[in-house]
């Protein structure tokens, strides 16, 4: 199955102004409708190793699996949507690989990574995320944060301890409550969303959203939507202009046209009679 021509994808990743290493990792396959972003953590280069393992495992495995499996069908064994099943399995696989490497090699001890994955199919997308890497949507000129961070600050906001405005002042940034590769088992948060032509999706690491306000992100997406590559570079540049305290990664996906699943004739007939 291919979505060629339905999505435009552009990305940019940068170590920022302070860090010497880039511990973020990104991967995408526009034809398969697959984008992955990870923000690694851990000493020396372990963060890069963890985020690199996460994106590589997930993109290569899913690329192969999507040749055979149809994401919008229901899996016969689990009764779940195939898209969910595939994401669930491959995230578990990436988690195990990172966890085992961290356990077996002392220089990788304690490494982990955040993750945000989006899989597009049948005018929909399934988003899976762990940690504080985010997915935003721009639709009709309005920017909305789609994912909710797994972080101490988000929990404090949810329980009313602090307001979202106060959270920007907090010293407890970058404390995630879930990460890939830290424990033998991890649960990703997985949701489905309808997509529309002209939607723009932004996947980013906290190096972007900590340094650039949502207003400025929205303005950039709206103003530069006709040149997605420039838009991605501009977002990274703005984060760097504001201090670039962390690694910055951005993936942009623009929906160019509808991409409904190719239903069989029989299926179409059935749906008429329903």
């Amino acid at each position: 199955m291919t979505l060629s021509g339905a999505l435009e994808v552009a990305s940019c990743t940068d170590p920022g102004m302070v860090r010497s290493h880039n511990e973020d990792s990104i991967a995408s396959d526009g034809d398969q409708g697959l984008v992955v972003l990870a923000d690694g953590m851990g000493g020396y280069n372990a963060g890069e190793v963890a985020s690199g393992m996460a994106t590589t495992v997930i993109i290569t495995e899913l690329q192969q699996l999507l040749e055979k499996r149809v994401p919008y069908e229901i899996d016969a064994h689990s009764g779940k949507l195939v898209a969910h099943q595939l994401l669930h399995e491959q995230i578990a696989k990436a988690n195990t690989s990172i966890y085992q490497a961290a356990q077996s090699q002392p220089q990788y001890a304690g490494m982990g990574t955040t993750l945000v994955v989006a899989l597009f199919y049948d005018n929909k997308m399934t988003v899976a995320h762990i940690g504080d890497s985010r997915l935003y949507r721009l639709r009709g000129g309005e920017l909305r944060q789609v994912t909710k961070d797994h972080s101490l600050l988000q929990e404090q906001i949810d329980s009313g301890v602090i307001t979202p405005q106060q959270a920007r002042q907090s010293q407890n940034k970058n404390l995630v409550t879930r990460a890939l590769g830290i424990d033998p088992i991890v649960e990703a948060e997985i949701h489905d969303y309808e997509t529309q032509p002209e939607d723009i999706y932004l996947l980013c690491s906290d190096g972007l959203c900590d340094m650039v306000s949502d207003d400025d992100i929205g303005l950039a997406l709206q103003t530069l939507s006709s040149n997605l590559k420039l838009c991605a570079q501009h977002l990274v540049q703005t984060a760097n202009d504001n201090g670039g305290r962390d690694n910055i990664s951005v993936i942009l996906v623009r929906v160019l046209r509808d991409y409904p699943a190719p239903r069989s004739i029989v299926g179409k007939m059935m749906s008429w009679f329903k």
Partner: protein
Amino acid sequence: MAKLILSMDGLVLKEIALTKERTTIGRKPHNDIQIDNLAVSGEHAVIVTILQDSFLEDLGSTNGTVVNGQPIKKHFLQNNDIIELGKYKLKYVNEAVAGQAKAADFEKTMVLRPGSMKLATAAPVAPAPAAVPVVAAAAVGARNFSDTVAGQSATPAPVAPPKPVAAPQKNAALQLLSGANAGKELDLTKPLTTLGKPGVQVAVITRRPQGFFITHVEGASFPVLNGKTLDAQAHSLNDHDVIELAGVKMEFFLKT
């Protein structure tokens, strides 16, 4: 680690490190910070510390708690805040903020693990490779805290949202030199201003700390700057530069 400096009439009396999750302030001796003065209530206020953040809450004191001249019920403490209780002053100092040199270390993403919530003052330590679930602790910690403050009508703290953008000092504008709107001026106040016709030729002027830059966005032809056709890269704009775009000439100038 955050601390409080207690003073009266400009005289420093003592320093108190905020090592506990709850640090109580009041006149009675069982308080962590005892201030033996009749203007201070028996149980006057409490400071709740969660890792690097501290929150001050008035416990219904008779004379109230004042931060930076404003009476507060609940307040998210920021570096150098002055808490006033009667004649006494408590200055809040958060070294995580003060020591910017260490900022890079603090900003590394960490996983919050069970147990780390108790180390209210410890700097985020590299996660130990223990085999315990990550999620629970934070949730529990946050919930306990919310229980203690639930029901308080949290007065919105006078916290200005951070404005990290070091915008260029100077303002600039474009004056159209040709076309139907010749003579018109366009102020470049936004971080991004687009010029041209969508689908034909569009360029963008970005406002950055270093100055103003023009970049080609879309269209087959590129903008012309002072008679020279630009490439796909961003170009910095100088005072009185002339831009030609989609058949319209305009002059860039800095405002004083």
